[in-house]
């Protein structure tokens, strides 16, 4: 049940780097455990408040959240005691790009709902921004391609959904 992926001695396998005991899984385990504990407390409160019967609605939450806490504890113990693992040599993982992409997504959803910009411009701008974040080539080399794809895609989606599928999308500022 251990998380060990590769049991070779350190420094002998090409394509891997010694990474020691990674911190990430431990933090993840603590978060998992705390979230589970919070939900278990909630389930206990509900059971106390509404009463607990074997065929009532308060038993399953107790079982699921208890299991969550026990497994979270096991996961924490494993990530704490795991042998130093060797990971495949991967380029250093970036936190900036996924975080920026997430911000772009949330911004996109809020603009769609709470501004009058409309589906086509919002989608086109989001698409170009996301492609920029995900791509590695210089801005100038791809901006034209991305912009053309973005406009075409958002226009086709808008027309297809509003005209043919009868699903409303915000029309916004464009006269379409």
């Amino acid at each position, binding site marked *: 049940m251990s998380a060990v992926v590769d049991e070779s001695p350190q420094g002998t396998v090409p394509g891997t780097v010694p990474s020691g005991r990674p911190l990430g899984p431990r933090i993840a385990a603590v978060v998992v455990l705390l979230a589970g504990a919070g939900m278990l407390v909630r389930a206990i409160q509900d059971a106390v408040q509404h009463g607990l019967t*074997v065929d009532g609605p308060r038993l*399953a939450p107790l079982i699921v959240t208890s299991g969550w806490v026990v497994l979270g504890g096991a996961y924490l113990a494993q990530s704490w005691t795991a042998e130093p693992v060797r990971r495949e040599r991967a380029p250093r993982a970036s936190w900036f790009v996924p975080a920026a992409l997430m911000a772009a997504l949330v911004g996109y959803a809020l603009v769609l709902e709470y501004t009058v910009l409309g589906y086509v411009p919002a989608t086109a701008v989001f698409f170009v921004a996301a492609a920029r974040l995900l791509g590695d080539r210089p801005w100038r080399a791809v901006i034209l391609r991305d912009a053309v794809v973005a406009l075409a895609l958002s226009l086709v989606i808008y027309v297809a959904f509003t005209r043919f599928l009868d699903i409303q999308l915000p029309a916004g500022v464009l006269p379409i």
Partner: protein
Amino acid sequence: MATSIEGYQMARRGRARAALATAAIGSFVAGTISTVLLSVLAVPMARFAVMFRAADYFALAVLAMVAVTALVGRSMTRGLLSLALGLFVGLVGIDSLTGQARFTFGSVNLLDGVNIVVVIVGLFAIGETLHLASRPHDVPSTVAPLEPARGFAWLTREDWRRSWRPWLRGTALGFPFGALPSGGAELPTFLSYTYESKRSKHRDEFGEGAIEGVAGPEAANNASFSGVLVPLLTLGIPTSATAAVMLAAFQIFNVQPGPDLFDEGGALVWALIASLYLGNVLLLLLNLPLIRLWVKVLQIPRPVLYSGILVFATLGVYAVSGSVFQVLLAYAIGVVGFFMRRYDFPIAPVILGLILGPMMEEQFRRALSLSNGDFGVFVSRPLTVVLLSLAVLALVVPYTPRLLARGRGDRVLAKVALGEDD
């Protein structure tokens, strides 16, 4: 997926056409044979399923969830944690039997529960894209130019000779393993790949693009799907993530798969089965001429492809729900999916827990209220006992082949066996 190892190597050697062709024809052969088996077996199976009572359904749901969780992924702990997350999300909303709210945190948006579409879009589309975004410049995007086309000859005589036995063997593995609660296509494709890589005359080519390594697993993959339909249609129990999504689709149309489906919705079921025959033929007819196009799809620049996926993911949730809350919820689930992928948690158990959890709870409570709260109902019938024992067994068995593969020092196999494919 096992196929991608050999298929990718074949593509790199300019044999993408043969790889796609043997996959397409193999899928057709396996799909047709296994759909015949489904047509023959479904009705007797449904007759048998009529005898199932609430306690048996509960036991069966436990078995399906535990078995799938135990068989995919590298770690039982992480797999069960994924399952717990799915079960938890399944609890959110109004309880179907009493109307009491659970884990809604006072939000009206959560009273209806969390829609399966939102979870799937979040975990798969958003989570996958975020994961990819965190690892830039990781995937080489070069594919060797195609070898020159020779009219309609996608496969050489040699390719045919090497492909037909793996197709049939893949089918023989795929259908029964698909019908068992073993996680759908994972196990049979892996078994087929293992078998071909051990038994093939061209063992030495494995890892460098052996056609058997594409033909067998692809056939097994497609055959297992018809197998998965056996418990889905006759018992209403999904045994893979795909089947769980299909069950959700059935429920959207107010169709409840189960023993009665063949009596009450006979026309619908047989139409579905007929559509499988047709779908297989169409898949073949579409895939072979379009191989040139599919190879081109590999060349869509990654930023464009993934930005498009994000646009469609958002559109899907927004169009279905019309609510920005649901869109943001899908994004939040995407963040969870990102961390799950990063720390190697399997995704399939979440989906199964979400679908099977509410069903399992309902049958559990029904069984207990029929027995006036007597837990003996879960051990009083042999069928229930057998199913629950199998569930316990499923928690133990996965360690056996895993240890064997590792003991033999078979790194590639160990990697495939332990790797997951959602």
